[in-house]
């Protein structure tokens, strides 16, 4: 299975938003969810301008099948102003038939390799030094996903970091030193 990974730019922005929101013609989903997709599109456009890069999409035979999304830590509220740290907000492969086949790991490794070499406008032209991920989806509504979440990122070289600032006090922060 040959997966190609591309940075999200204004050109393929719709491939990213299309992976996490239903189509407008899908009447079984709420209008506000689709509107959330429009807000995301607007935000990503601004984020690309501000940070240079904030997401990558995986393609299989030209079709978008998954993505990884990430932002500089200083973009997040309630966190101390951590320098040169990138926080992953989401790694998502919507199709169950494509999950568990290493696509998510390819996305994570692509990000790691990219950040090792890339100077980022978000860090005044310097490289990131650390990647972190909090408890995505685990603290709100999906506690059963925590073991899978940890296993996935630990397998990709992340380590538990109890010293990482955690305003929630819930723990589970994993980091990767670049």
């Amino acid at each position, binding site marked *: 299975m040959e997966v190609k990974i591309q940075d999200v730019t204004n050109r393929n922005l719709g491939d990213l938003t299309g992976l*996490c929101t239903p189509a407008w013609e899908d009447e079984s989903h709420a*209008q506000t969810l689709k509107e959330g997709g429009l807000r995301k599109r607007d935000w990503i456009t601004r984020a690309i301008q501000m940070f240079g890069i904030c997401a990558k999409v995986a393609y299989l035979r030209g079709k978008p099948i998954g993505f990884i999304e990430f932002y500089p830590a200083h973009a997040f509220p*309630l966190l101390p102003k951590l320098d040169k740290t990138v926080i992953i*907000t989401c790694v998502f492969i919507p199709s169950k038939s494509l999950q568990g086949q290493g696509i998510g790991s390819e996305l994570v490794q692509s990000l790691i390799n990219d950040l090792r070499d890339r100077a980022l406008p978000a860090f005044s032209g310097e490289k990131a030094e650390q990647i972190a991920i909090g408890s995505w*989806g685990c603290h709100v509504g999906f506690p059963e996903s925590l073991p899978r979440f940890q296993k996935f990122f630990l397998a990709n070289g992340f380590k538990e970091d109890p010293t990482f600032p955690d305003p929630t006090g819930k723990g589970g922060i994993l980091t990767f030193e670049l």
Partner: protein
Amino acid sequence: MFKDSWQMRDLEAKVEVFYFGCCPWSYFFGYGGGFLDKAWTKTGGDYKAELERLGVEVVEYNMLEHQALVEKHARSIDPFNPFSNYVRFLIDDQEISKEQFFEKIRQLSEEVH
């Protein structure tokens, strides 16, 4: 009709929705998503329209772009969780609980009728 009623009473009803711009689900959950007020909507889709129909001012804040407001008003959110969201219910600039808010505007709506 309801909007005129609010204006006549010089009452300002406002809902502030704090959401993560990176996640459509955060926005959806902020507008209910079946959790905010189940009596009004199961999907969240009608909730926003219903608020606007009642003349409630709706203000949206992408938390990635309004950090100071999050620090001030929405400290309970989880910055690591893109689903996270927060909603403030205000009558005349005073934050009240969701239950009090809906009770108040329903009460006023009944009075108008």
